[in-house]
């Protein structure tokens, strides 16, 4: 029985009556969200109605398609390090998010997606615009949850943000039925979440493994560091640099790790993987200790696994224990956030230099310069090459721009040749390889970092997948630079058809509209360049233009990206032509 004393001792919680929709927006404000990418519809109307009153605190960017919305949120998150937020309605609105969710899941991008859902009493009845979003999105979300009662909103949103941004980040989807959005309930304020008993974002760091890793590194004669996005996601760029400089070990990056280490850093040996640099690929199979930091040995990085770094002892640092030993067996698995484990390791390692070992990388580098890079960056004649566009762009931006690339040949060229001085400057769809990613992601990146120049490098295939987002640019007046490298082909597929399918060019011959005219229709200035001597001037006009600008560069039709590790081959079988 409750006594009078009990009643007095219990603090009286002040509550106010608000709707579920208001509680949701209060949660976003409490999580310091300022930008939402979204598209309204029937089942999310109460939230949009509430948003009408919050337009001063919450900037809503109306996209042209939900896929554009989620890619924009990804670009926003990748550039700013904050959680990207997306609104979409039920049914098609929600299913249009799936590609972006899969992309964010595989590339560890923190997102919170809010989808409207039909009234709870209609669930399971094939109601209008009803779809089983929770089950559709389960494989492509870090966590998802359906809310049918407004009282759950504050707590579930707090969990959603905590899960999305902590540990190995990822996308979270919260599906809210329309009745919960409308429902009035006693709101007792918002409390952020910092612990869920079944969820451990960071594994416990075992000192014995740091010590074991340090012992291996100290005894190594030919050590090699390969790093990925974990360095960026952990905000561990400084810790990584300190580790690298003390250890003196040469390092190479995966395309998601790109920009974590400045391009011109003396220990930066370049890019790993299928179209990576010659040295890093070959040397993977020569080093004695391979130190993998915040990367997951994707097959595009490793090539044939049974011939990958078999001679080396592998040290694998990762925040996600399920990545260790998944593809490559580690001699020492260092579980933990590299922001914490790298300084621990740095303390235990000796200060060293490896001039002879690094010289071997340089030899390969010189050969690659001679066989591939010089022709690509300074072609003497013929059509403009993608590489030279990037070279001139580098000269003009001096490595300060954010480069958002789409998927295909131009992506590999952009990752290979773009120069970076700052972290979080390379935004691309790595794991999923989503064509159509770049234009919306560039829009998001600009909203996330308005002070920076954002250049979207896109092929003639990818731009046509999400070209409708030019409308978002038009309406918001945002300033991004759209650089279309047009080779009049679906170039990467064509390259494979040329090399592995007897040049049977099956459906890769893609026609383009007049992009400059299309842009003009959206009120965006632009031009097309075909001649080499006009390239620099056009890039200058693009960069100095106030507002968005579209520059289409006609590049060599049948140029290939080299070097290349053919599928099913070992990294040491990399081809220069």
């Amino acid at each position, binding site marked *: 029985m409750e006594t009078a004393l009990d009643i007095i001792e219990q603090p009286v919680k002040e509550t106010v009556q608000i709707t579920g929709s208001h509680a949701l927006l209060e949660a976003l404000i409490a999580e310091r969200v300022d930008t939402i990418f979204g598209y309204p519809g029937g089942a999310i109307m109460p939230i949009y109605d509430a948003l009408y009153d919050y337009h001063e605190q919450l900037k809503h960017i109306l996209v042209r398609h939900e896929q554009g919305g989620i890619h924009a949120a990804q670009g926003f998150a990748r550039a700013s390090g904050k959680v990207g937020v997306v609104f979409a309605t039920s049914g098609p609105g929600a299913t249009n998010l799936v590609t972006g969710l899969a992309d964010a899941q595989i590339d560890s991008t923190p997102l919170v997606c809010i989808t409207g859902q039909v009234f709870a009493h209609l669930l399971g009845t094939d109601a209008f615009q009803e779809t089983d979003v*929770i*089950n559709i999105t*389960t*494989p492509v979300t*870090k*966590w*998802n*949850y*359906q809310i049918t009662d407004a009282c759950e909103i504050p707590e579930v949103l707090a969990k959603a943000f905590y*899960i999305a941004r902590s540990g190995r980040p990822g996308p979270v989807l919260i599906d809210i039925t329309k009745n919960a959005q409308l429902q009035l309930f006693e709101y007792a304020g918002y409390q952020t979440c*910092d*612990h*869920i*008993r*079944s*969820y*451990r974002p960071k*594994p*416990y760091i*075992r000192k*014995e*493994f740091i010590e*074991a890793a340090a*012992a*291996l590194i100290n*005894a190594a004669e030919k050590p090699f560091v390969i790093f990925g996005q974990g360095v960026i996601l952990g905000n561990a760029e400084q810790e990584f640099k300190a580790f690298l400089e003390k250890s003196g070990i040469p390092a190479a990056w995966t395309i998601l790790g790109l920009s974590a280490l400045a391009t011109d850093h003396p220990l930066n040996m370049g890019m790993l993987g299928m179209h990576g640099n010659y040295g890093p690929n070959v040397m993977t199979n020569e080093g004695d200790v391979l130190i993998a930091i915040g990367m997951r040995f994707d097959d595009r990085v490793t090539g044939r696994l049974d011939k990958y770094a078999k001679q080396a*002892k592998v040290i694998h640092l990762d925040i*996600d*224990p*399920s990545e260790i*030993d*998944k593809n490559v067996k580690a*001699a*020492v*698995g260092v*579980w933990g956030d590299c922001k914490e484990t790298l300084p621990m390791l740095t303390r235990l390692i000796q200060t060293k230099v490896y001039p002879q070992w690094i010289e071997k990388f340089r030899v390969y580098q010189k050969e690659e310069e001679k066989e591939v890079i010089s022709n690509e960056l300074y072609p003497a004649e013929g059509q403009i090459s993608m590489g030279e566009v990037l070279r001139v762009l580098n000269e003009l931006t001096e490595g300060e721009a954010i480069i958002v690339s789409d998927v295909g040949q131009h992506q590999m060229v952009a990752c290979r040749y773009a120069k970076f001085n700052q972290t979080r400057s390379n935004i691309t769809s790595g794991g999923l390889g989503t064509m159509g990613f770049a234009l919306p992601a560039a829009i998001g990146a600009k909203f996330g970092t308005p002070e920076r120049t954002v250049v979207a490098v896109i092929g003639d295939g990818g731009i046509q997948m999400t070209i409708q987002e030019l409308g978002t640019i038009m309406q918001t007046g945002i300033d991004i630079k759209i650089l279309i490298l047009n080779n009049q082909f679906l170039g990467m597929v064509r390259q494979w058809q040329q090399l592995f399918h007897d040049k049977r060019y099956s459906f890769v011959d893609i026609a383009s509209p007049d992009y400059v005219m299309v842009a003009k229709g959206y009120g965006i200035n632009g031009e097309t360049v075909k001649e080499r001597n006009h390239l620099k001037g056009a890039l200058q006009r693009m960069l100095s233009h106030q507002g968005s600008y579209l520059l289409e560069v006609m590049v060599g039709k049948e140029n290939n990206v080299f070097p290349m590790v053919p599928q099913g081959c070992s990294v040491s079988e990399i081809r220069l032509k």
Partner: protein
Amino acid sequence: MQKQEFTITVYTENHIGLLNRIAIIFSRRKINIESLNTSPSEVEGIHRFTIVIDELEEVVGKLVRQIEKQVEVLKAYYNTNNEIVWQELALYKVSTDEIAEKVQVERLLREYGARAVVIRKDYTIFETSGHREETNRLISVLEPYGLIEFVRSARVAIIKASSGFHEKIKEFEATDPSDALIENEYLGKQQEIFSM
């Protein structure tokens, strides 16, 4: 290495949708689940999945880590059959007339430790529990006497070496768990690490 039977034990929150989240980890790799049971555990509010698959140990280890990675999963273990005690329950429906006529049926049932759950004029339902081979053997024995219906439950298993989840749950609930909780499988392999 050869495929063998492994029993995976998963401690989870009791939330809707978790079954799907766990099941797709197997289906994604095209692995068939031989048996699956969900039930409460010794700790209130904590659910326990018992999953049996036939796989290589290397694969099972990866699956278990991917299961444990799920936000609502507290802990997952995998064990060989030697490391667990397990049972399956089976029900058999036979014609009551047949049993009444043939004395040896009753003897057989007693021999197999079967127990009558329901006895009606037209049929009788027996239950027995044990390993798969035991419950299977009774099917073949009963078949000549007209086995009308048969059903078997999923495997339930207890890990011999486990000390249960009561203490563990306290660690999980603490904001800053001690290292006692973190079972890093490398810990037993220090010798291998220093093999260079």
